[in-house]
């Protein structure tokens, strides 16, 4: 199933009227991979009335991960606390690096990340990955796990207070033995795997880590979006979407057309 992020805007300047990223089906935004929106500068276009920009969760680096206790899609207890460490199905451990992937079961990028996590080395006292869904129920998580082929434990945290604080932006956290968040990112890109490996290796080696993920820009109301110059799928001919002089325009095949508003999104296909 395809999910998209999109922003619909009507503004008097080529700026974004609503922000959204890394989330799924919120308000007028459809979910993932990511999204862009442009609004034209039309003299008779209404002033933008977008939603508040969301913040991402990367501000959590340096804080302690809140304790949690949920049930995995296999019916096992999965819990974390600073005092007891990590518990999965009655087995306790305190890995040097605990990676917590907060996801949504119908999110393609989350599925990509779940598969990518399987490429990380180890499920032992040095490193453990867990997935916590902040949407959907146990059946959705079980289906997600089956579809992705991921073997790391997953549970649903949907509706929990823990998820309310820790799920914005579908983040991924790496936590040290003491429960301190040493790395955080939102969303997923294949290039993240190398970063995770570095962070995990540092923790295994006992090195101090304080690191945020790649710069994942938030698209916020009032911001101007970049010029888009890309080939049209299947033709190779370049199309340009831009707003020179405050007029949103599409130029392709030698023709230029202006618009009052636009909805654009990154698509899986």
């Amino acid at each position, binding site marked *: 199933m*395809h999910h*998209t*992020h*999109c922003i619909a805007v009507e503004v008097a300047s080529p700026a974004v009227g609503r922000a959204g*990223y*890394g*989330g799924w089906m919120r308000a007028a935004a*459809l*979910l*993932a*991979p*990511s*999204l*862009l929106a*442009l609004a*034209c500068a*039309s003299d008779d276009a209404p002033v933008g009335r977008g939603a508040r920009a969301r913040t991402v969760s990367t501000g959590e680096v340096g804080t302690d991960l809140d304790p949690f206790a949920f049930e995995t899609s296999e019916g096992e207890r999965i819990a974390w606390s600073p005092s007891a460490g990590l518990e999965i199905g009655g087995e306790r451990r305190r890995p040097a690096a605990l990676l917590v992937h907060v996801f949504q079961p119908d*999110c393609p*990028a989350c599925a990509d990340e779940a598969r990518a996590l399987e490429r990380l080395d180890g499920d032992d006292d040095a490193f453990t990955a867990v997935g916590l869904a902040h949407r959907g129920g146990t059946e959705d998580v079980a289906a997600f796990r089956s579809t992705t082929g991921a073997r790391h434990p997953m549970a649903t945290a949907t509706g929990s207070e823990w998820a309310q604080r820790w799920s914005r932006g*579908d983040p991924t956290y790496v936590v040290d033995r003491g429960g301190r968040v040493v790395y955080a990112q*939102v*969303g*997923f*890109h294949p*290039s993240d795997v190398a970063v995770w490996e570095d962070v995990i290796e540092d923790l295994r080696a006992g090195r101090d880590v304080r690191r945020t993920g*790649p*710069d*994942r*820009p938030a*698209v916020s109301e009032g911001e101007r979006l*970049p010029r*888009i110059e*890309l*080939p*049209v*799928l*299947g033709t190779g001919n370049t*199309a340009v*979407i831009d707003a020179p002089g405050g007029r*949103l325009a*599409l130029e*392709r095949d030698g023709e230029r057309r202006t*618009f*009052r*508003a*636009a*909805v*654009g*999104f*990154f*698509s*899986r*296909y």
Partner: protein
Amino acid sequence: MVHLQRFHEAHGDRGLLVFAISMEADAARAIELNRELGVDYLVLDGAGSALGERYAYG
């Protein structure tokens, strides 16, 4: 995408530009899938692009 297609059909002639940036590495597959879904809004090829690297992380 179905909803966006409907949005495009309803408002495309009224000044709304609907466009997608495809991140599918296999362009032929992307073309086929869009065709099956009945998409006729603008789809750009963003696979491997710097724009996608920066924004397509959701």
